[in-house]
């Protein structure tokens, strides 16, 4: 068996089915014991009396010096420099509150916008229900999420619609070097802003928006299987306007995903490129 994962249920009761491996990544559940193999226990784990257990449902990941569990579910957990799509839920005297699909709302201060606003005038710029694209600036020790609208490609968006997917699937929506999102945008004629929080703003011709929505649903539900790019291209091609005279949809070729072998010292650390978050399963 893959990593030689030690049975986590020895002597603990009936059964003792070892966790199954999913393409070299083991699925673990809260309470399942983890064989740390000398690594430091990281996020998604906890220790009791010298033994380490998973705390969330997710994929076990061993990247020295840390062993962690990558959650397969759960709300978006903000990280500085992430770009997210949010909705205004409250207007206060000097700031707005944004719902960014995280455990807490994020305050956007009036100084974090490109507008010159007087105190009390905030409602003239952003109202409850408006959609904005913002960047996470900081997360302070009490958990307060600082966001800003100052920056390229940030700001209020008008029109269009927001589609919600699981944050874990966002890397698949972007694709390697943005290939998937570029294909979606080019094929449908829609402008698309992908938030790391799983909120995706889409605007364009009505039929294009329908196709984007369906393609995103495909990615969310089947993203873990191989050949996703081809299947999405296939869907887009089959739903093209009959008068569309463009050639076949280019699907960028890329080497097949090769899971690290069990003897690897470990994957390279995240270098902050497009595919942040869990690696494709």
């Amino acid at each position, binding site marked *: 068996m893959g990593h030689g994962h030690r049975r986590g249920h020895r002597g*603990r*009761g*009936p*059964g003792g*089915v070892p*966790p*199954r491996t*999913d393409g070299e990544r083991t*699925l673990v*559940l*809260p*309470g399942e014991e983890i064989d740390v193999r000398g690594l430091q226990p990281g996020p*998604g784990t*906890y220790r*009791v009396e010298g033994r380490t*257990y998973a*705390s*969330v*449902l*997710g994929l076990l990941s061993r990247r020295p010096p840390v062993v962690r569990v990558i*959650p*397969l*579910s*759960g*709300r978006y957990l903000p990280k500085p420099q992430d770009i997210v799509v949010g909705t205004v839920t409250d207007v206060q005297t000097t700031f707005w509150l944004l719902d960014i699909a995280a*455990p*807490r*709302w994020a305050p956007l201060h009036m100084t974090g916008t490109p507008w010159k606003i007087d105190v009390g005038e905030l409602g003239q710029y952003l109202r409850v229900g408006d959609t904005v694209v913002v960047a996470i600036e900081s997360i302070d020790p*009490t*958990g307060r999420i600082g966001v800003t609208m100052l920056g390229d490609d940030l700001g209020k968006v008008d029109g269009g619609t927001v589609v919600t997917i699981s944050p874990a699937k966002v890397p698949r929506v972007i694709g390697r070097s943005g290939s998937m999102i570029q294909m979606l945008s080019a094929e449908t004629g829609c402008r698309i802003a992908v938030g790391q929080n799983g909120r995706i703003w889409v605007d364009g011709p009505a039929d294009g928006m329908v196709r984007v929505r369906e393609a995103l649903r495909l990615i969310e*539900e*089947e*993203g*873990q*299987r191989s050949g996703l790019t081809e299947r999405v291209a296939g869907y887009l091609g089959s739903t093209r306007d009959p008068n569309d005279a463009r050639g076949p949809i280019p699907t960028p070729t890329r080497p097949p995903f090769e899971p690290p072998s069990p003897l690897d010292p470990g994957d390279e650390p995240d270098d902050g490129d497009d595919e942040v978050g869990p690696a494709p*399963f």
Partner: protein
Amino acid sequence: MGSVGAKEVPVLLSPDGKRIDGRQLDELRSMRIVAGALHQADGSAFVEWGANKVMAAVYGPREVHPRHLQQNNKAIVQCKYNMAAFSVDERKRPGLDRRSQEISKVIAEAFESVIFVEEFPRTSIDIYIEVLQANAGTRCAGVVAASVALADAGIPMVDLLPAVAVGKVAGQIALDLKKEEDNFGEADLPMALVPQSGRLVLLQMEGHMTAEELSKSLDLGVVGCRAIYEKMKQALRDRYQLGGPAEGASA
């Protein structure tokens, strides 16, 4: 045994040790669990246990409303257990009643002991348990459903929380009471176990038992909980291993 009011008391235990539905004293009812049954909730689970049908939905961690309930250093856990009007023989009047409030409180406290609430200060983890069909042990079915729903929602926990009601029928300790056994038996003991530590985080009793019977009940309950634990894990594996909607673990 004779009659109780207008109803006749059923034979709860036959001479050859079989219960009213043919089960052995230490036998669980059949159980089916489907993780992720609801797409809108952050996490959800549907449990069929004997004739019980229970749905649980989890939202959170999310902002607390009303604000004054929030805790600076941790998430609060709120639970609303409710029985649908059609879930029982005699229509249950809709709305909060004392029993639902008690069960809600007891379940919220059980989960508070296993959820890593310190990871999400100033938020609330909201658990909704809806009983669609009731046949004794609904609070245990609710705990099982809510536990799977919490894992489905990605909430960090010490462990899943299997739960079961042990009881005394016709003088014998029996596992997983059904409706007639609960109504006409001598004691009912719902409990929830943290398998990782072997500790109980929910334990209530109605009825009469000796200390020795209690001890025997706890042992039997722990064995029952461990069996249920495996089914809960299987339901989650079914959902996440293939990534699609789950078929659920069958009994």
